[in-house]
C-alpha cells in the first residue's frame, strides 16, 4: 500500500506537470495577448507602447523562460499578478473558489441523490412504463446542454413565478445560500444525475442476475433489502468511477451556468480571464482545477478499497 501511494503521488505530479505545459502552450497558441486586446479595444495600435507593456509583463521573453518563471513562482507559492486588475492572483481567485466549490458540491450531491435511487428503481422496474419514462428523462438529461437547461429554468421561473432568486450580493444565511445555489446546481447536476442513473440501472441489472441475489432472496430478504442493500452495495462500484469523472465535468458545466445565473464564481471568472488573455489568472486557475480533479480521482480510487473488499492496492 505504501509503495502504491508513492507511485500514485508521482503519477499525480506527472499529470499536473503535463497539464501545466499544455495550458501554457495552448494559451500562447491563441492569437493575441493582453496588449493586443487592450489596443484593439482602444481602436488604435501604438507599437512602442505595446512593446513596453509586453516588456513589463515579461511577454517579450522566450517562451521557455516565461514557463520557468511561472513554474518557479508557483512552487514558491507566488502566483503573480493579474494583468487586468494588477492585484495578486491569489486575491482574485481566492474569494471566488468557495462559491464555485459550494455550487459544484451541491450539483454533485444533487446528481447522486437523484441519480442513484432512480437508477435502482429503473432497474427494478425494468421494461415497465416507469422505466421507459426514466430512461427518456435520463436520455434528455444527457443531450441537453446545461446552459440551455439553465435558460429554460430561468424563463420558466420568470414566466410562472415572476421572479427567480438571483445573485446580487453575497447571501447572509445558509438558507439564503442554499436557495440561491439550488437552481443553478440542479441545472448543472442534471446531466450528471442522468449519467449516474443510466449507469446505476445497467449495473443493477447486471448485479440482480447474480447468484448471491438469489441467495439473499432464498434467505428471506425483502425486496427493499435485496435492492438497496445486497444489490446496490455491489452495483455502486462502477458508478463511483463515473462520479469521480463527473466531478471534473461539473466544472465545465459551471462555466456557462455561472454566467447564465450571474454568480461570481471562478468558473465564470476563468472565461473572462481567457478573453483578456490574463495569463497568470488562467494558468493558475486551470492548474488549481487540475489539482482538484487529480485529487478527487485519487480519493475515488481510495474509496474503492473501502467499498470493495476484493480490491487491495498491492505493490
Amino acid at each position: 500500500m505504501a509503495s502504491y501511494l508513492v507511485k500514485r503521488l508521482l503519477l499525480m505530479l506527472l499529470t499536473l506537470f503535463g497539464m501545466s505545459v499544455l495550458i501554457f502552450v495552448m494559451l500562447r497558441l491563441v492569437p493575441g495577448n493582453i496588449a493586443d486586446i487592450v489596443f484593439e479595444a482602444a481602436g488604435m495600435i501604438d507599437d512602442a507602447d505595446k512593446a513596453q507593456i509586453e516588456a513589463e509583463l515579461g511577454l517579450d521573453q522566450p517562451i521557455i523562460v516565461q514557463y520557468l518563471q511561472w513554474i518557479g513562482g508557483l512552487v514558491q507559492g507566488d502566483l503573480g499578478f493579474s494583468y487586468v486588475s494588477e492585484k495578486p492572483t491569489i486575491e482574485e481567485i481566492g474569494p471566488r473558489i468557495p462559491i464555485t466549490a459550494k455550487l459544484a458540491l451541491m450539483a454533485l450531491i444533487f446528481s447522486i441523490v437523484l441519480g442513484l435511487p432512480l437508477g435502482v428503481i429503473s432497474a427494478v422496474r425494468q421494461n415497465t412504463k416507469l422505466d421507459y419514462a426514466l430512461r427518456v428523462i435520463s436520455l434528455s438529461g444527457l443531450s441537453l446542454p446545461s446552459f440551455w437547461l439553465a435558460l429554460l429554468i430561468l424563463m420558466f421561473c420568470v414566466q410562472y413565478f415572476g421572479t427567480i432568486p438571483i445573485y446580487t450580493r453575497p447571501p447572509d444565511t445558509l438558507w439564503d445560500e442554499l436557495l440561491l445555489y439550488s437552481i443553478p446546481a440542479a441545472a448543472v447536476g442534471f446531466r450528471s444525475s442522468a449519467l449516474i442513473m443510466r449507469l446505476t440501472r445497467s449495473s443493477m441489472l447486471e448485479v440482480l442476475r447474480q447468484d448471491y441475489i438469489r441467495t439473499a432472496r432464498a434467505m428471506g430478504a425483502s425486496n427493499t433489502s435485496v435492492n438497496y442493500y445486497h444489490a446496490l452495495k455491489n452495483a455502486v462500484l462502477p458508478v463511483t468511477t463515473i462520479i469521480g469523472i463527473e466531478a471534473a465535468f461539473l466544472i465545465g458545466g459551471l462555466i456557462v451556468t455561472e454566467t447564465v445565473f450571474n454568480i461570481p464564481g471562478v468558473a465564470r471568472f476563468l472565461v473572462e480571464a481567457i478573453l483578456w488573455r490574463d495569463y497568470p489568472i488562467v494558468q493558475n486557475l486551470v492548474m488549481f482545477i487540475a489539482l482538484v480533479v487529480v485529487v478527487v480521482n485519487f480519493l475515488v480510487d481510495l474509496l474503492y478499497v473501502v467499498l470493495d473488499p476484493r480490491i487491495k492496492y498491492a505493490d
Partner: protein
Amino acid sequence: MSPMTAQIAEKVEAAPRRRSIGEVVLTVDDLQTVFYTRAGMVRAVDRVSFALKAGETLAIVGESGCGKSITALSLLRLIPDPPGRIVGGKVVLEGTDLLSLSEPAMRKVRGNRVSMIFQEPMTSLNPVLTVGRQISQALMMHQGMSKAAAMERAVEMLRLVKVPEPAQRVKEYPHQLSGGMRQRVMIAMALSCNPRVLIADEPTTALDVTIQAQILDLILELQNQLGTAVILITHDLGVVAETAQRVIVMYAGRKVEEATVEELFARPLHPYTRGLMASIPRLGLMRNQTVETGRLQEIPGMVPPLFDLPAGCAYAPRCALADDRCRAEYPPFEEKRDAHWAACWHAGE
C-alpha cells in the same frame, strides 16, 4: 443386475441409514411450473408430487434440464416471473399451503422454515459483505436477534459447520475463503434458523472430490443433529446411494420413478433410471476407493426440448423398449411394486 448396479447396491448397504424419521413436514401436490419463452410454453415442472418426512433425505435425480432446480425454486416461490410462473398445485408445509401465502408471509418462510443451498459456492455469497454479516442477516430478520447476538450466533454456526477459527472468519469476506469453506458458510447460513426443510441443489457438484465427501457428511451429520428434512438434488447416483432414503427420478419435467434407495438400486423399473445407472461416471470416487468403471454407457439421444414434447412418453425417442403405444400415450404413474412407483408401459421388462 449389472456389475455397476451391484456396486451401488453395496454402497446402499454400507451407508448409515437414518432411523429417526418422523412425521410428514412437506407435501408437494401436482406442482406445475411453466416458462413462457419465445419458442413456446415450457413445462419445466409438470405435475410433480411427493412427501417429505422430518429427518428424511429425499433425493431428486435426473439429467441436466429435467426440472430439478425449478422444482426446488418453486417450493420457495423463487421462480423469476416473468418468464416463469407456478400455474398449479400445492406446497403444504406443516399444514400451510405456501403457494397461497402472501409475499410477506412467504418471506418469513424462506431461510427460516425452508432454506436452500446452491451449487455454486463461489458466486452464491455476496462479495462485499462479510461472512458474519450474511449469516446474521437471516437471524436478525427471522429471529429478531440484535446485531451482536446474531453475530455471536454466526460464530457458533461456523463452529458447527467445522470452519476453523470461526471468530476470525466471521470478519472475512467470501473471496478470502476456499470453495469448500464457502459451501460450509452457505450451510451455516441455511441452517442458522433451524429450518424444517433444507433443499440442497447440487451442493457438491462444483467442489473437489475430497471436499465433496466432507460436505455431504457434514450435511448428513447436521441433519441428524437437528432433525431437518433434506431434499438433495443431484445427478450423481453415487451420492444418492450414500445419503438418501428415498429417490425421485425426473425426466423432462415429470417424475418417472420413485422408490426407496434400496429398492431403486436393486430393481430399477424405468428404462431411463437404468440408463442413468449405466452411465454413472467415477462410481468408486465417492469414498477414497478408486474403482475402474470401464466404459461409460451414455444414454443415446438427448432430452427433447420441453416446449415440443412428444405426445406419448417423453423418453420414448431414446428408449430401446419403446413401441407404438409408448409414442402415442403417456404412461400413468403407478405403484408397480410395494412402495415403488414408475411411469412406464414396460416397467421392469
